[in-house]
């Protein structure tokens, strides 16, 4: 680790102001940042500790949703009774991520901002356009088993590793921020992460010095909520493919479905065409296959990750079968 100075932020706006200083980086749970600092992928000269800011509450909103503070620990959000009863897909996604030790440290805000686990991003001796713009992408022709099949570019084929964000995408969560001047902004989670394009080093649409304070969960939509994660071991592994599904069906007919995917792209992937194909459809193999086809429109493998395309199809069909079982 390179040397750094350390200070605690007094308020969210204070954190935002301090974070605009050169070399400054915000630390909350630190489970990803410190890992990267040990490998010198991240080399901040100042750490701004926000872990003790009073943003650790989960409150009811007047319309029947929840407001989740950015410092709420992943374990506490997963265990909250209201989340378990009304947002099962979120509770399940959080519990599918990392280990119990890491979930207690990891915050909601930090979870959204965690970096890709691409091997080449982590290895400072290898080219990576995300870590060092213009240096190239070693994953394109390298070991790319865990990499993206949707929304990638010739500059970067990394994936976003969060499970929580996939569930939040299905729930249409909103991210609340504050800047150094105290101005607040709401960002729909759909607009939060960016696809790599020609600038894979720019990962989100947060502005410089903008600090996440909370997440708004709208009232839960009707239907069965499922989070299914396919991974290399039964627990404590990142997703190869994951599906967050909220499916409203009755009498063998689907009224409405929401589908978000992890492990496929550099952002949690939502497929409107697939959702539209399911709306009003008769539950069963043909409709499920058509939805999978719509999700995977334009999907492309890079060798090691070719298997993700059929795996996504099978996983989605299994999830939809489970969701519409009467």
């Amino acid at each position, binding site marked *: *680790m*390179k*040397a*750094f*100075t*350390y200070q605690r932020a007094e308020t969210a706006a204070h954190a935002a102001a301090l974070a605009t200083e050169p070399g400054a980086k915000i*630390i909350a749970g*630190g*489970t990803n940042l*410190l*890992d990267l600092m*040990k490998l010198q992928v991240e*080399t901040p*000269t100042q*750490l701004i*500790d926000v*872990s003790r800011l009073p943003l650790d509450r989960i409150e009811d909103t007047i319309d029947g949703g929840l407001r989740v503070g950015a410092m709420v620990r992943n*374990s506490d959000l*997963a*265990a909250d*009774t209201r989340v*378990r*009863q009304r947002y*099962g897909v979120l*509770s*399940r996604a959080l*519990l*599918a991520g*990392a*280990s*119990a*030790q*890491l979930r*207690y*440290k990891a915050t909601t805000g930090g979870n959204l901002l965690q970096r890709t686990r691409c091997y080449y991003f982590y290895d400072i001796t290898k080219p990576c356009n995300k870590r060092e713009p213009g240096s190239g992408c070693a994953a394109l022709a390298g070991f790319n088993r865990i990499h993206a099949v949707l929304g990638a570019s010739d500059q970067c084929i990394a994936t976003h590793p969060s499970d929580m964000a996939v569930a939040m995408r299905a729930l249409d969560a909103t991210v609340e921020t504050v800047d150094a001047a105290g101005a607040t902004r709401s960002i729909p989670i759909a607009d939060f992460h960016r696809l790599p394009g020609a600038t894979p080093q720019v990962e989100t649409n947060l502005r410089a010095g903008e600090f996440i304070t909370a997440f708004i969960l709208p009232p839960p939509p009707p239907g069965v909520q499922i989070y299914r994660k396919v991974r290399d071991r*039964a*627990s*404590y592994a990142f997703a190869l493919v994951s599906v967050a599904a909220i499916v409203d069906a009755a009498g063998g007919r689907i009224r409405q479905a929401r589908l978000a995917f992890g492990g496929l792209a550099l952002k949690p992937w939502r497929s409107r065409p697939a959702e539209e194909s399911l709306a009003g459809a008769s539950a069963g193999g043909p409709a499920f296959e058509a939805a999978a086809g719509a999700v995977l429109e334009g999907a492309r493998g890079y060798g090691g990750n070719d298997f993700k395309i059929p795996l996504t199809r099978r996983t989605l069909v299994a999830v939809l079968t489970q969701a519409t079982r009467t």
Partner: protein
Amino acid sequence: MDENDTRVWFTRRTLLETGAAAGAALMLTRFPAAALEEPQGETAVTGVTLQVNGQARALELDTRTTLLDALREHLALTGSKKGCDHGQCGACTVLVDGRRINSCLTLAVMHDGQAITTIEGLADGATLHPLQAAFIAHDGFQCGYCTSGQICSAAGMLSESRAGMPSFVTEDLTQSPPELTDAEIRERMSGNICRCAAYPNIVAAIKQVGTPT
């Protein structure tokens, strides 16, 4: 090695004898194991007080010091182990305000004033903590390197389970608290890796302590 270079001449014994009373000079001494961590740029030092196993311990630390290194290298509490040093193996698990964390993936300065419980703080004098006794009774280890992390993790896990916190394998998330089945124990302990694969006996030990009699 340059004989004038005294930085690396502290033996393990010296460290253990002086660790508790160590002053700033010793704190900043580097040991061979830390050779890869050459200071880069100006080193920042800050004061921190940790409540370790019920005792206040004031330290002056390089800001980079992880909680694990503060415990092992500065307080000579070597029960907590360094396995991967990246939060992947769980050997460094300790309890902070009663909740389990990977002490390798957090900075000591971030825990100023907080209560840290390590494996050294679980026994009551000569009376072992029930989990320690159960690990012995069930032969829950072979080499023992992961054991202190396993036991601290299990202590945190049993509190979580008693508080009704669900796990990924809990069938009904609205049911509270879930029954502590083997599958629940395995899922909840997945952050602790055992290279010797003593898992069946670890599960048995935890189940014995976690099951109401």
